[in-house]
């Protein structure tokens, strides 16, 4: 009994769900960022699973680009978090409602 593509896709779905739950219940901006990384990795896993299922390297190319964009996103996001938390130490996401209409 060897793992099929379906198993990997189900695992990716569960991982994505865990990331969604974490994004909504945590209030520390850094931990929320980590949950976004979890979701990105779930998608990467399903990309690679599809690439193997269809014997098409394009899936792995997509994962490569996702990794580049994730790295850039983390750098910019952490820069924003540093800029915010330097002004208001200990701020959680709930405190950052200044732009609320």
């Amino acid at each position, binding site marked *: 009994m060897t793992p099929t*593509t*379906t198993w990997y896709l189900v695992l990716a779905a569960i991982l994505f769900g*865990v990331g969604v739950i*974490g994004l909504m*219940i945590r209030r520390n901006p*850094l931990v929320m960022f980590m949950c976004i990384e979890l979701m990105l990795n779930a998608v990467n896993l399903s990309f690679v699973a599809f690439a193997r299922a269809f014997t098409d390297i*394009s899936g792995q190319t997509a994962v490569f680009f996702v990794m580049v964009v994730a790295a850039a996103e983390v750098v910019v996001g952490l820069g924003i978090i540093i800029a915010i938390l330097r002004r208001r130490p200990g701020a959680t996401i709930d405190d950052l409602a200044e732009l609320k209409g």
Partner: protein
Amino acid sequence: MELLVFVLASVMVLAGAIGVIAYRNPVHAALGLVLTLFGIAVHFVSMEAHFLAAVQVIVYAGAIVVLFLFVIMLLGVDRAEDLTVEPFQIQRPLAVIIGVAISGLITAAVVRGRSTLGERIDSGVPGDDNIRELARSLYSDNVFAFELTSVLLIVAVVGTVVLTRRQRGGVDK
């Protein structure tokens, strides 16, 4: 053997993911993230994506998590967060319902469309050819996107420097 690897790596992935959302201390959450990323890398190896597995370990588990830890230490937010206080009572059960629903929907779609995936096909690309194939795809079909990523990285670096620079004597600070 393959089944054993799958089960062990999946346990790593899910335990790390649960750790990320359940640990109260952000440092511990980051370590849970490392566990998840290593588990994903093991999955990549078992799916013969060797280059991506290496990049996963170097870029994700190496660079990105170190960046997270660096920011945690820099800001001094490494104290435990009190998870029992919840300003919006409905938020937590609603979050769990939505997360489980999303997972369930994707799982249902995958199980329903299982027949189109077929059984496991042995990939035509053996291990050594993986990097060559990936490079061929990157530098021929996707060369424009590849060049754009370099622009993206430059913009990200410049943007971060601008964002985190302290204004010297300005009224803004």
